[in-house]
Every structure is written in C-alpha cells, then in structure tokens.
C-alpha cells in the first residue's frame, strides 16, 4: 500500500562513534512496530558480528518504517544506515545522496566530537536537512542544555526543538519521529521521467543473487522490465522489486520515484551493481546518470597466506565468497619464497584490510599470515617503460630504475584548534606538504595537507587519534602520482632473506625505519635454540642489525614419579605455539612479527 509521495521521508542517522546511533535506530524500529520485541537483538542493523563488536557499521543498511504521526497521517520512513570510517567515505556519501535529511545525534555528556562535525559537513554537502537530537539524557553527566547550545554555536543548527532523548531507555524517542516527519522534506519525485535510481549498496544472497539497494530518484521500475547499469552497461531482467523491512524483505508491485527499495535480477556478483551507479531502463533510458559515481579502486595491497599451506583452497573459496559481497576487495594468486602459495589482495584502506582479515579468520576459521601492506608505485625504467609495483618482491633492480613515483593524497584533518601543533608535527613527520588551514568555527580547524599514501596506510589514523585524544577526524582522496626517492628494504633472518617482510620506503626514512624494524623483530621473535642475527638491507648493504640471543634454559628438570602428563601438556602447548609460527630457513617467526613491523609508533 503506497503512501502519497508527500508522506515519504528518506533519512540517515549520523553521529560520532558511540553516541548511540544503532541504539536509536533500534528504538525507532520498535516504536513503529517494525519488529516484534521478541525479535530484537541489540543493534539490529549492525548484523555482522564484527560490526557489533567494533561498534562500527561496515555495510550500509536500510529499513522501511511505517509511522502514524500525530497529524493522523501515515508516513513511510526510510532509514538508511551508513558506515562510519574514512575507508568507506565514498559509501557514506552515496548513502547520504539517497536521503533528504539526516538525524544528527549528539551525546549529552560529551557534546560535539570529531565525527559529529565531519559527518555534519558531509551531510550539508548533500543539502540534507539536519534534525539534531541530544541523546543519553539518562546519564548522570548529561548536560543537554550546554550541548544544545554548543550545537547551535558550532554548527549553527537551531536546537530549540531538538528532542532530548535516551535511546537506551526509550524516553522521548517518539519526538524524533515527529521531527523527522515535520522537518525533513518529502522527496521531489516524478514518476513520469525516465528511471534513475541510485545504488547505495548491494549484498549477495545465496538464493536471490545480488540484492541491489536503491533510492529511486525519478521514474518507476517493476518486475519483468529490463534495467541497465549506466556505468557498467550491464543489463538485467528484473525478477523482483520490494521494500526492506525489518527483519525481512517485502516484495511489491512497483518501486516509484522517491522510494527506497531493493531489486533482484539474478545478478551474479556485486561488481555488476556498483555503489553509486545509476539504474535506468533499457526501454526508455535516462540521458544522464546521477552525479557522483566513482570507480572505487583498491589502494592498499598485501599478501594473504594461509598459516597452513593445506588451507590454500579454503582461503580461495573464502575470498571468492567475500568478494561476492564486497566489490572493493580484489585478489589474485601469488607465491612467496617464505610463505608459499597465497593471494595478493587489494583493499580500500587499512581498516578494510583488518576487517577482511578478521572475517576470514572468524567466519571461515582460517589461520592467516599477512605481509606488509603496500601501495601501487609507478617505476619508470631506463628503457622508457613503466611498471606498476604493488608487491615489494617485484621491485625492479635499482640499476634499471630511472625514477619512481608514489601516490599522493589530498588529506583534510578536522580538529579542535588546540591540536594544530600536534597534527602538523605528525603530518610533517609523514612527509606531508602543508596546503592551507581554515577555521570552521572559532575552535575548530580544517587542516589541508598533501600526504603520500604510503605514509597513511599503516597507522596514521591511529596515531592521529591518539595525539588528538580522539577529537580529530580525517578524510583523504587520491590526488595523483609524484616523483619520489624510494628504496626497497629487505629483512634477513639468520642470513636468509624473508621476502614477505620486504617493503618500499622513502629514502629519508629508510635508516630510522630499518633500525626500528630490527628492534621490533628482536622483541617479537622469541629466543630460539641458537642465536639469530637480524639484518635490514638495501640491496647488499646492511643498514641495521640486531641479534636475538639464544634461549638458554627451557627444560623440565624433574619427571617425578612417572607423572609425564605435564611434559605431554608442554609438548601440546609447544605444538599450539608452532602453529602461530612460520618457518623461514632455520628461524621461526611468529605471525605477530608481520604486524609488528607495520605499527612502529610507540604512542599508539
């Protein structure tokens, strides 16, 4: 039963992490009877185990709510939940583009924080109507008046009508629904124009194939029609259209302009339904796609290997399955002298990498070793050719190299003005080039730097957060390639090169990094039965060295009264320990060593 278009409201919820986004979403679902109380698990929208645990939303989600407002009319509310990390900024922007408004949650005890502001500006960029909500009024430390004043001051949003709620207890949450209905405009929607529907997410389903989540901007679509993806050109026969309901799908006859819904069309892979692409109809196609589509390319690459070589097939199957649902994940087979058979995988950023790694380990029960992440370098050779290198192992012989280029980003950091010094120190240290700085408000600045991508993929965000006590937010986009003085560092253990630990680095940083890595490896590699020299080398020149001393004592002196259980247990424990180790020549290296060489800062 379709409602009149003027009764549709499409909105997102934006908030700083832990300000209660998912909890409020749950309450809205309950209040609109969209889901039976008994089916409520906490934070229904974050359905990945990992999302609940990390408290972040990784995939976008959407749900349609029916709300009978105080004015007696029934409204169709479409809540589009967004991911919340810089790795997924593009996905966020597409979700926001599907809305007319956004609910901005601010924690009554903490006030405006980094992501509050970053998300606000992102929403304003999309011309969204903002509905401020002061949450967590049940907390003893809550100061709703002060926080409301802050929101008015800093963001310039009128908070006189801002609901003050406790998403946890449910207090005043119905006011949020009223504000959505009153303040957020209905979509401007014309059913008679050629179809243009924005894809803001797609997920793979074992039975239906890819389920495409769309916001219909103009036109209509129903089952049996043929649709075309405007960016990829792929065409499909629509099998089913419908609405996202909690907790399941609800097919409908037709999706019309202004609505949010899903399409299934026996699509085999999410690559054919890319986020940001525009769906139109083959019969009467739109002339222009919707603005804002961007091809999302992996930026960060690393080798992913099964700890046990026998799991290679299982790893391939798992990557294949994950890719069904994640168009930005790429992988291809590679071989390492040290690690055997594995895959070179491409990711949007380091968080994306960590998430995929964790999902492989948890959902597919794989034990993995991952190598140092790398970006794509363009190496210009003396013979005039250019090679793209995303794996240090393939770095050409220095004698053949004319010059090298590395990817550069335009990075914006939003933070309270107090932290400008700390942030500039960090960016300087990461070879950043200062561009400009603008005051967003009296207290907050936008610092613009050009930063090499390889300086931000490891731990930049972690360090930034720790140096600004979590108040800074960070966004970047690729700005192109720049000539750079690069070196490849190799790690030798007991004289044997460990190809999986090689990495590419700027010449100015090679020495310090080499020393740090040698130290880190010394800390991470457990003492073994004999002494192990650690050497870091550029070509044949060793620039840093450490030694892991031989273990001296590891003995169960007494095997008393024939009780050998303890000895057996020890043996079992040793075997368990061995599983976390990789054998390189004569040296055993724990998997942590691979991560340890990445995270070199002490203050994270």
């Amino acid at each position, binding site marked *: 039963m379709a409602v009149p278009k003027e009764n549709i409201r499409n909105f997102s919820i934006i908030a700083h992490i832990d300000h209660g986004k998912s909890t409020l979403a749950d309450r809205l679902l309950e209040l609109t009877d969209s889901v039976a109380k008994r089916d409520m698990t906490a934070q229904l929208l974050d359905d990945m185990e990992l999302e609940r645990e990390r408290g972040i939303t990784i995939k976008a989600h959407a749900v349609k709510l029916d709300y009978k407002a105080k004015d007696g009319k029934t409204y169709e509310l479409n809540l589009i939940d967004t991911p919340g990390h810089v790795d997924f900024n593009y996905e966020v922007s597409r979700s926001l583009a599907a809305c007319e408004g956004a609910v901005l949650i601010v924690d009554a005890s903490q006030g405006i924080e980094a992501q509050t502001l970053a998300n606000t500006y992102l929403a304003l960029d999309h011309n969204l109507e903002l509905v401020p909500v002061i949450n967590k009024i049940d907390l003893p430390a809550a100061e709703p008046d002060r926080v409301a004043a802050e929101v008015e001051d800093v963001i310039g949003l009128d908070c006189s009508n801002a609901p003050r709620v406790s998403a946890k207890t449910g207090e005043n949450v119905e006011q949020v629904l009223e504000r959505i209905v009153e303040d957020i405009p209905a979509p401007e929607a014309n059913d008679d124009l050629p179809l243009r529907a924005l894809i803001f997410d797609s997920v793979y389903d074992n039975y239906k194939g890819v389920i495409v989540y769309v916001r219909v901007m103009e036109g209509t679509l129903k089952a049996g029609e043929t649709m075309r993806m405007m960016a990829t050109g792929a065409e499909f026969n629509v099998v089913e259209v419908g609405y996202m309901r909690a907790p399941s799908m609800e097919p409908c006859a037709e999706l019309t302009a202004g609505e949010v819904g899903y399409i299934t069309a026996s699509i085999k892979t999410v690559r054919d339904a890319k986020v940001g692409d525009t769906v139109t109809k083959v019969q009467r196609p739109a002339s222009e796609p919707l603005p804002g589509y961007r091809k999302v390319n992996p930026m960060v690459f690393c080798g992913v290997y099964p700890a046990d070589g026998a799991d290679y097939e299982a790893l391939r199957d798992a990557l294949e399955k994950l890719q069904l649902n994640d168009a930005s994940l790429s992988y291809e087979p590679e071989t390492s002298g040290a690690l055997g058979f594995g895959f070179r995988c491409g990711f949007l950023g380091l968080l994306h990498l960590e998430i995929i790694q964790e999902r492989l380990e948890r959902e597919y029960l794989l034990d993995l070793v991952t190598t140092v992440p790398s970006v794509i370098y363009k190496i210009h050779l003396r013979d005039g050719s250019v090679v793209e290198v995303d794996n240090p192992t393939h770095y050409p012989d220095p004698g053949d190299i004319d010059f090298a280029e590395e990817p550069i980003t335009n990075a914006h950091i939003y933070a309270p003005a107090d932290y400008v010094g700390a942030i500039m120190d960090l960016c300087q240290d990461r070879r950043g080039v200062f561009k400009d700085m603008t005051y967003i408000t009296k207290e907050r600045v936008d610092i613009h730097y050009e930063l090499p991508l390889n300086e931000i993929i490891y731990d930049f965000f972690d360090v930034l957060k720790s140096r600004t006590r979590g108040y800074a937010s960070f966004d970047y986009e690729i700005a192109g390639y720049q000539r750079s003085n690069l070196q490849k560092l190799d790690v030798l253990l007991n004289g044997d090169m460990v190809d999986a630990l090689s990495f590419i680095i700027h010449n100015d940083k090679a020495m310090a990094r080499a020393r740090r890595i040698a130290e880190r490896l010394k800390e991470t590699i457990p003492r*073994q*039965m*004999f002494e192990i020299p650690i050497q870091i080398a550029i070509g044949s020149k060793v620039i840093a060295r450490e030694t892991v001393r*031989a*273990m*001296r*004592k*590891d*003995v*169960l*002196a*007494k*095997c*008393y*009264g*024939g*009780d*050998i*259980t303890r*000895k*057996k247990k*020890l*043996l079992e424990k*040793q*075997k368990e320990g*061995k599983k976390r180790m990789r054998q390189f020549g*004569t040296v055993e290296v724990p998997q942590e060593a691979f991560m340890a060489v990445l995270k070199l800062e002490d203050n994270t």
Partner: protein
Amino acid sequence: MSAGLYFHIPFCARKCDYCDFYSFTPTDGRMDAYRDALIRSIDRFAPAVTAPFDTVYFGGGTPSFFGGARIRAVLDAARAALPLAPGAEITVECNPSSTTEALAASLAAAGVNRVSLGLQSAVAAERAALGRTSTPQQAETALQRLRRNGITNLSLDLMLGLPGQTAATLRESLRFVSESGVPHVSAYLLKVEENTPLFAKKETLAFPDEDSVCDFYLQTAEALEQGGLRQYEISNFARPGFESRHNLHYWRDEAYLGLGPAAHSFFGGKRFFFPRDFDAFLRGDPPVQDGDGGDPEEFCMLRLRLAEGLSDGAFRERFGKHLPEGMFRKAKALETHGLLCVTQDTIALTKQGFLVSNAIIGELVAVL
C-alpha cells in the same frame, strides 16, 4: 619385560616451602590406615599383573617419616601378592632428620637396598630458604647409619637455582657430595611452583638469574663427572651400574604401577593415575584413566631425556619401523649448534642441549 612398582607416601612432618607434591602432616591413625589401604590396592591389582617387578620405589612425601615397620608391611604384602624379581632394586626416599639408626636397621631388614636422601644443599642459608629443617651433618650421619646397615646404593638430591646460590656456594654443596662418596646424585633445577609458600615470597628472595642457573647446571655436571658420576639423564648422575633402575623404567617408556594418591601408572598399555585425594584412595576409589600410553611421540620424548639418547634400533624394536628420516635431518641441523650428538643410529642431547631440551624435543617429535 619387567616393570616398576611405585608407592606414594603422602606424609611429611612438615612441608617444605618449594614442594608441590601431594603430601600433608598426618593425624593419629592415618598412617596405619594408609598402610592398610596400600596393601588392599596391591591385592586389587595383583590379578592383572603378568610380568615381574624388578624395582620398587617408595617416594613421597617422606617415606622415612612413614616408618620402617609400615614400609616393611607394604613390602611383605607386595612380595606375597606380586611377582617380585630376585635382586629387585628397592628404593626408599629418606629425610636426613628422620633417618635414625633404628630406621636404617628396619629398612635393611625389610629388604630395602637403595636410599635416596634429600640434601638439596650443603649450605645452611640455602636450606633455610627452602624451609628445610635438617642439617648437612644430619645427612652425613644418615649416610653412615645406612651404610652400617648394609645399604650402600645411596643417592643424594641437589637443587640448583636456589635463592642466594652462587658458583661458590654450589661448589661447597658439590664438595659435600663428592666427599660423601655416594654413587648417585640427582641435581634438579628449582622450579618455583604456584601455590607453594616459596611462590608467595618469591619477590623477597634473591634468585640467581637464568644465565647463572645454566652455568650452575654445567658446573654441576662437570664436577660430578670428574668425580666419576656420569650424567645419564637430564638431572641424574651415577657411577656406572648405579643408575636408578626404577627411574629408567619411566624414561625408557616401560611399564610401572603407581599406588597411592597422586601416583601415576603406565600399566597394561594404559596411563592412569590416582587423584590427589587421600580419602578417595582409602575408600578404594579407582584411578582416573589417562588414555593409551607408549605411542611413538611419548617414546621419543622420554628417551631423549637420557644421555644414551633415542636410537633407531630401540625405536624399531618397539614400533617395527624406522625413525623418520626428517628427525635425523633436523637433528643434524641442531648438531651444528652444539645441542645434539647424532650418529648413524642415535640422537642424543648434549649438556647444552639438555638445558633447552623442551624446545629440542618439541622440534624433533614434530616430524613424527
């Protein structure tokens, strides 16, 4: 093949600070009740016994505190119910302070022919740190009494890594051992076990660092070998022919039956043990099963504790197949670091190797 018979005596006059073995100070009548329970358990197992026992071992706790008469009663019951090989090695662990003339005489009369005496250290301060009350002089007296009664197969226990121990104090203990003329010494590295008084006060004690302890171990081995006591196991040294035949059963992965709470057995191909529960043993509760014993891994793990090492011949005799090639390959690699001595047939740990034996054994058995 003959087997070993072990009796656990869970009684002590007073528990030492480092000890986490199962023992307690008994109240009146408990020791007699226990003697009877041991005898009942002998009778219970007798029907299952096929091979003769060639060693008997009373360990503890403090068997000397249990007393000669009770030990004799248990031994008599064992002789009556079980096949005991002629010339069996019969060992009793004794505490110097409870080794009276009368005890020595009654042990000898009961047929005991070997005594292991807990010395730990000849240095008063080190003994005090362990909560040992007896003195080195008492140990000397005890040895004299035992010898006078014809028990000459004697062993002393030493401990390495004691609080306050130095190369010099260790030399003192080693001199004491050498002058005592015993043909067998066990030298253990002190391990501070949780739930012991020593663990509780370990922060207040000056333990020698790991490197020193390793040096002590090598110093001990050298001094003992110079005195003619050859190292035959990680912690054991003996004049040729005086090795503990009973303990060799453990390390050669041979059968033994252990009776008493906390006693372990490898018997009839099964491993089992009695729980650390005195009353359960008095009631005659059955032991806890611990699965099959004697697999190749266990065999290798135990044999590698011995200086004679793990031989392909012995392995083949037991399992009807060769040791894997890979084990010899790994052993060869470790031999270059001085940790092993490898021949055509045998893999044996060196003294340096014994110090890291857990790691080496883990490495070698991984190829099985």
